[in-house]
């Protein structure tokens, strides 16, 4: 029987990206458990203002993935350590644009990914979550 894995919450260095706290929601931005990091779904929050960006989908994807990078780096990890990504789009038609921007963030040996469309809240065009290795 393996020893119990340690479990702790992770937070972004930029408090404007801590939506769990700022919106008083019952989750944390991410959990580190043993060698893994599980991030909560992230949307297109402007890191300067904390406001949602509802520009073109390319911009929303770029902001969301940049925020994901920040979140992982705040925890000592990185985009290169991501193993699985879930991309949810409000509109299936945005897949090609999403793909175009997404590949900028994962240019080499990209993680596993599943992408699909669902109804999203707050008028967001995308919601992205991931699992990464902590180190």
């Amino acid at each position: 029987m393996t020893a119990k894995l340690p479990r702790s919450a992770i937070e972004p260095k930029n408090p404007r990206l801590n939506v769990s706290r700022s919106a008083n929601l019952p989750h944390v931005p991410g959990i580190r458990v043993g060698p893994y990091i599980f991030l909560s779904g992230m949307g297109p929050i402007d890191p300067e203002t904390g406001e949602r960006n509802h520009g073109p989908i390319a911009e929303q994807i770029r902001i969301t993935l940049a925020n994901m990078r920040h979140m992982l780096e705040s925890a000592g990890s990185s985009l290169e350590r991501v193993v699985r990504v879930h991309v949810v789009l409000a509109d299936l038609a945005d897949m090609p644009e999403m793909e175009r921007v997404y590949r900028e963030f994962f240019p080499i040996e990209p993680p596993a990914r599943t992408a699909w469309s669902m109804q999203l809240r707050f008028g967001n065009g995308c919601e992205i979550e991931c699992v990464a290795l902590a180190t």
Partner: protein
Amino acid sequence: MRKVVAAPLPGLDLRQHYGHHQSPAIRAGGLIFCSGMLPIDPQTGERLHGTLTSEAHVIFANLKLLLESAGSSLDRLVQVHALIYDSIEYDVLNRVYRQYVASGPPARTVWTAQIEAGFKVELDVIAAA
């Protein structure tokens, strides 16, 4: 090593009741991967349709039973996918949800999805063993 977490009560064996080809949970690598938990009676397996609130309460009670039978607990949740049938019930979900994860909640993503049997909510979770 991959180990099955058996249903702690007969109603939680969805395979037997509904023919769903799945185990209630699998323990591996220090984590417990649970099948999507539904609002069903843990003794009888009967579907307990209700409001999103009532369904969520049943789900959390079932998860508590399942995780504790495996030596884990709701406090050890690491990731939750909260499936809801319509995003209009987001605040309702939060009101119930926060009652169960008060100290140190897990990561979460809410998915607005079509859920089986017309249920309003389902929780897909991973916990630390």
